[in-house]
């Protein structure tokens, strides 16, 4: 069947069941409720003063009585420095557990070593917001029988509430924890800041293990993960490589092109009609997207504007802006560098939020819904303004949906910042390989070769033109790029579906097909 953006979607996938095609960015929300029933989280009991501490991760895993076919959920706050997930899976494999559904909030290069467990049938299904590194390549080549499901950060919470992801075992690495399981990412030698993505896992995990390399005297404060959800605690020597988890401060790009794009984007934001006292703002963690913050910061100082809040993945750059009083509050679901952990711990206006409050579409209002402006990157964007942030130029899974579609859907102004082409690969194209964020939720594209306003928003274009900002048709830009780079030989795909792209409301917006060998 075809969905609302004309992508061919299968009716059914064996292990998931019937699929619902994408109907439009806000179609399912209009009703004001969700038809799917929320499954109850597990009830548990412990005796007073019962010990939860285990000597090893293996001992804790054995106590949870793991079974083949189980679902393991996990968080990715350790980013590229993660040492625990591979260890946990190898323990399960050693115990002869097969057919695991791995539902990590994201997967990256530190998980390359999981490849052999995909090959030998230990892991057979994957839910994640992103997959990078060797796993992404192997999955794109069809290593798994079942397609992986790519969800957004907000969509993941919904998928757990509705029982699409059923966490039998949840493992939560934490930078500090106490013997009852109160845990945080904000301090400890492996501090990673906010533990926001793991909060839903803690609530729904039938068995929850907290793993830490910094066991502190009771109570561990602040309480990111609560003891009343935690079954076992394990003290290990190290949860990962601190230099890869979070280090130093995030710097603004020096790339002249990224800076040029960011400056144009800041001009667009300034004249969008939203750049006013109390405005709210989100940027990505790198490249042109983060650089937009640099120019917005200057403009806010210049015009003496004070914003309300910054949201999302928080970098030290956001912390600087909080300190300068440019924004009242930081809402932090994920912290990108060491400076952020310090701020989260010490500044009461820097607030840790769970993924649900951040971006879950099915509640009484997530914070992305309150966003005025978001600046986001793209691997590809097409003439319908659909954005791909998951598959690379060779058709391989190599990115992350993350909060892209969540924030785009919520913000009053979604600005996509990207070069028009990158190393001869066109970014502005006729049709993106994979749609993650639908064009109807994208207002404007800013590239080094011009600014294109989505024709669905003529008022915005008029406003920008009136302020002296030139705009052009995206079709024209696409043609220009094509003439510069030369038409590429199309990548060949087979019919096999290796990935489903879930929109945040649970409908299927696109599929990823297997890359053909050549």
């Amino acid at each position: 069947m075809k969905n609302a953006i004309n992508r061919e979607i299968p009716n059914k996938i064996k292990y998931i069941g019937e699929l619902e095609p994408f109907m439009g960015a806000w179609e399912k929300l209009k009703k004001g409720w969700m038809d799917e029933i929320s499954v109850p989280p597990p009830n548990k009991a412990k005796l007073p003063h019962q010990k939860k501490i285990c000597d090893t991760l293996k001992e804790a895993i054995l106590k949870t009585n793991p079974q083949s076919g189980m679902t393991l959920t996990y968080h990715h706050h350790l980013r590229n420095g993660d040492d625990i997930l591979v260890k946990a899976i190898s323990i399960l494999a050693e115990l002869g557990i097969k057919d695991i559904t791995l539902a990590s909030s994201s997967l990256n290069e530190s998980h390359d070593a999981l490849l052999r467990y995909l090959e030998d049938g230990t892991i057979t299904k994957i839910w994640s917001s992103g997959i990078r590194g060797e796993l992404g390549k192997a999955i794109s080549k069809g290593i798994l029988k079942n397609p992986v499901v790519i969800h957004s950060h907000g969509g993941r919470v919904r998928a757990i509430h509705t029982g699409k992801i059923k966490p039998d075992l949840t493992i939560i690495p934490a930078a500090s924890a106490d013997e009852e399981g109160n845990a945080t990412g904000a301090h400890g030698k492996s501090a990673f800041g906010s533990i926001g993505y793991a909060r839903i896992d803690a609530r729904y995990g039938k068995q929850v293990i907290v793993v830490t390399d910094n066991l502190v005297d009771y109570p561990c404060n602040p309480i990111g993960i609560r003891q009343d959800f935690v079954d076992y605690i394990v003290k290990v020597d190290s949860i990962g490589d601190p230099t890869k988890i979070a280090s130093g401060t995030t710097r603004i790009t020096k790339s002249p092109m990224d800076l040029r794009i960011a400056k144009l984007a800041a001009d667009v934001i300034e004249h969008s009609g939203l750049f006013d006292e109390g405005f709210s703002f989100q940027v990505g963690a790198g490249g042109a997207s983060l650089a937009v913050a640099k120019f917005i910061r200057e403009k806010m100082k210049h015009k003496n504007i004070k914003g309300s809040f910054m949201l999302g993945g928080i970098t030290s750059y956001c912390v600087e802006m909080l300190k300068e009083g440019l924004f009242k509050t930081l809402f932090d679901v994920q912290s990108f560098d060491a400076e952020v952990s310090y701020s989260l711990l010490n500044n009461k206006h820097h607030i840790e939020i769970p993924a649900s409050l951040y971006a879950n579409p099915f509640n009484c209002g997530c914070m992305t819904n309150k966003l005025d402006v978001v600046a986001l990157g793209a691997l590809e964007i097409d003439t319908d303004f659909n954005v791909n942030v998951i598959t690379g130029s060779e058709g391989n899974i190599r990115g992350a949906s993350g909060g892209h579609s969540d924030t785009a859907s919520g913000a009053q102004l979604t600005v996509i910042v990207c070069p028009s082409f990158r190393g001869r690969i066109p970014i502005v194209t006729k049709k993106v390989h994979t749609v993650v964020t639908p064009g109807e939720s994208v207002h404007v594209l800013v590239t080094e070769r011009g600014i294109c306003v989505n024709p669905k928003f003529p008022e915005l274009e008029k406003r920008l033109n009136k302020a002296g900002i030139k705009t052009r048709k995206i079709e024209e830009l696409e043609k220009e790029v094509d003439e510069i780079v030369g038409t590429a030989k199309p990548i060949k795909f087979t019919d096999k579906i290796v990935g489903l792209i879930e929109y945040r409301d649970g409908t299927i917006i696109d599929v990823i097909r297997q890359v053909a060998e050549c």
Partner: protein
Amino acid sequence: MELHRKAQAGTFESSDIMILIEPLKNKEGRKLEISSSVMLQYGDMLSELVNNILDKYEIENVHLIAKDKGALEPTIIARLETAITRALNQQKGTLL
């Protein structure tokens, strides 16, 4: 034309191409080693372009290594022609 010496042009930067070129003895033909970060999409076009430029300079016996990092066509042509003219000892202002 006959090449006189080894030469190179370009860099390993993104959006550039590195060309290394050396003369081969008579009748050894063209030995081309072409690699690219966009081989799948533009590999064929790149090989064709290299051969066309070698044709233009009538160079038959050559060992050429091209390492492309997604250079655009004008860049590729410029780097190739520079390497060739250097190898032909024809480029003015080039320090030997």
